[in-house]
C-alpha cells in the first residue's frame, strides 16, 4: 500500500528553484533515505510534506487525500510527524510536557472542559501523562521526565524530539538528520531505536542524513538530490555505485 506520494513537486523562492520536479512514493512500513550535498533541497522537501511550505507546483497525497496546501497542524493530525535538524524543543517546558504537547491534537476536551476539570478532560489528561511516560520509557528518558528539556545532554534531546513526534500518533515519521552530532555508539543505539519503534508503532520513516554508514544500514531505499533535482534512486547498494552520486559528493573526476 502506498502511504505517501509526491508528484512533480517544485518549490521556488523568488528566482531560486530549491526543489525541481521531485517525485516520491513511499510504501507503508518502508524506511526511505533522502540524501544529497548541503543545499540540495532535502529539508525543503520535508518542509513541504510537513506543511511548513506550500509547494509552488505539484501535489502531495497521503493515504489517498491531498495534503499539500493544508496547514501544518492539519497535516500532523492526518498522521505525519517530524523532528528537526537543529533541535527545536520547548525550553521552558519540562521533558514530559514537551511530549504531552504532542498529544494536543489527539484530545477532544474543549478549553472549558480543561479549565473546569470535567471528567472527560481528567481522563484524557491521565491518558496524556501515561502515554507520555510510556513514550519516554521507549526512548529511555523516564528518569528525567520532570527536568527541563534543555538541561538534557544533546543525544537525549534528540531522543526527546523523537518521543514528542511519536506523541502525535504518526504513521509517517520525518526525521531530519537524526544522527547529527552523535558518536558511533549513540548512532548505533539510535539505529536500533528507530527499527524497534518502526515495528512497535507500525511506522513508515523518511529520513535525511549525512552519516552514510547509518543511511546505508537503515534505509531500504534511497533518493539522492542535488541542486533540487533527483539524480539517483535505488537500494543502498545501487546508490553506492552510482557514478552521478559519487560525482555529486566528490566533484567531477578530473580526466587527464
Amino acid at each position, binding site marked *: 500500500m502506498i502511504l505517501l506520494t509526491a508528484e512533480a513537486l517544485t518549490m521556488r523562492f523568488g528566482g531560486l528553484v530549491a526543489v525541481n520536479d521531485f517525485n516520491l512514493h513511499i510504501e507503508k512500513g518502508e524506511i526511505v533515505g533522502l540524501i544529497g550535498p548541503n543545499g540540495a533541497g532535502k529539508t525543503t522537501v520535508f518542509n513541504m510534506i*510537513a*506543511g*511548513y511550505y506550500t509547494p509552488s507546483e505539484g501535489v502531495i497525497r497521503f493515504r489517498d487525500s491531498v495534503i499539500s496546501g493544508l*496547514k*501544518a*497542524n492539519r497535516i*500532523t*493530525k492526518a498522521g505525519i*510527524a*517530524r523532528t*528537526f535538524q537543529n533541535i*527545536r524543543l*520547548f*525550553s*521552558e*517546558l519540562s521533558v514530559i*510536557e514537551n511530549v*504531552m*504537547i*504532542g498529544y*494536543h*491534537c*489527539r*484530545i477532544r*476536551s474543549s*478549553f472549558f472542559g*480543561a*479549565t473546569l476539570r470535567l471528567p472527560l478532560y481528567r481522563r484524557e*489528561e491521565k491518558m*496524556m501523562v501515561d502515554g507520555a511516560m510510556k513514550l519516554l520509557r521507549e526512548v529511555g528518558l523516564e528518569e528525567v521526565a520532570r527536568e527541563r528539556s534543555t538541561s538534557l545532554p544533546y543525544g537525549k534531546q534528540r531522543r526527546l524530539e523523537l518521543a*514528542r513526534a511519536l*506523541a*502525535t500518533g504518526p504513521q509517517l515519521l520525518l526525521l531530519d538528520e537524526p544522527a547529527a552530532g552523535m558518536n558511533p555508539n549513540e548512532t548505533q543505539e539510535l539505529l536500533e531505536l528507530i527499527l524497534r519503534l518502526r515495528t512497535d508503532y507500525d511506522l513508515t520513516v523518511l529520513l535525511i542524513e549525512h552519516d552514510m554508514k547509518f543511511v546505508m544500514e537503515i534505509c531500504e531505499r534511497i533518493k539522492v538530490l542535488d541542486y533540487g533535482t533527483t539524480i539517483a534512486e535505488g537500494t543502498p547498494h545501487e546508490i553506492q555505485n552510482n557514478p552521478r552520486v559519487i560525482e555529486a559528493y566528490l566533484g567531477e573526476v578530473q580526466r587527464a
Partner: protein
Amino acid sequence: MERSPLFCRRAGTGTGFLELTFFLQQMINGVALGSLYGLIAIGYTMVYGIIRLINFAHGDVMMMGCYFAYFGILMFSLPWGASFVAAMVLTAILGVLIDKGAYVPVRHAPRISALITAIGVSFLLENLGLVVFGGRPKGFTTPDMFAEVYEIAGLMIPALVLWTPLITLILLSGILFIIHRTKAGRAMRCISHDMETTRLMGVDVNRVISITFAVGSAAAAAGGIMWAMRYPEINPLMGIIPGLKAFVAAVLGGIGNVTGAMLGGLLLGLAEILLVALMPEIAGYRDAIAFGILIFILIFRPTGLMGSKLPE
C-alpha cells in the same frame, strides 16, 4: 480624574497613630489601584507573550467591557453580578473578534504592521464608542455591596477597596491555572517559545491565540468594571490612561510574564498613591510618574523585573 473619597490628605492630624493609619489607608488604596493596573496588564502581557504584539487596543477593550456591564444593568435590568459576568463574556468575544478581524490578516506581516493595526483598532473602538454611546460620561452604579464603607481600627475602608484585590487574586489564580494546568495553557507556553514547531506538533495555533485574547479581554473587563465603580462614571475615552498605565505595569513586571504584570501593576499603583499622598504638592504629576517609570525601566532593565535576563 481622581475622585476617591480616600484621597484627601488628613492634614494636621498630628499624632503618630493617625499618621500610621493614614499611611496604612494609602497602602490599602494603592494595592487596590495596583490590582486594577495588574488585571489590565495581564491582557497586554499574555498577548505579547504569545504573538509579540503590543495590543494598544487593550485599554479600549476594557472600556467596552464597562459599557457592556452598564447596558446589562440599565437596559436589560440584569442583577449586577450577572451583568458583570455577561460583560466579561462579551468582552472576551470582542477580543477574539478583534484578533480574527484585525490581527490574523497581518499575522505574518512585519511586527510594525501589527502594531499600527493595533493603534488603528484602538482609535476605531474609541470613535465607535463616541458615535454609538455618545461622548457624555455616564454614571456607573456601584452595587451596594461595594459601596459600603467599613471602619476598621480607625481606618475608613470602602468595601470596593477590599474586594478589588480579592477579586483580582481569584482571577489571577484562575489565569495562572489555565496557563500552567490546562492543555490550552501548555500550548500557549509552547507558542510563545516557537510558534512554527507548535503548529507542527498538531496544535491549532490560531485557536490557542483566540483563547489568549479571550482570557486577556475578560480580565480587562473585570478590571474595567472595578475601575468604573471606583471612579463611578464611564466614557468612550476612559480606556486610554488605564490602558497606557497597564502597559507600563506589564513592561515593569517583564512583558510576557503574567505574575510580573501583576507585580508591576501593584508597584505602579502603590508608587502613584503614595507619592500623591506624601507629596500632595506634586499630585498633578501622578500620570507622569508611570511614564517616568517606563522610561527608567526601558533604560536600565528593559526586560522588566521578572523578565528573563538578556544575553550579554
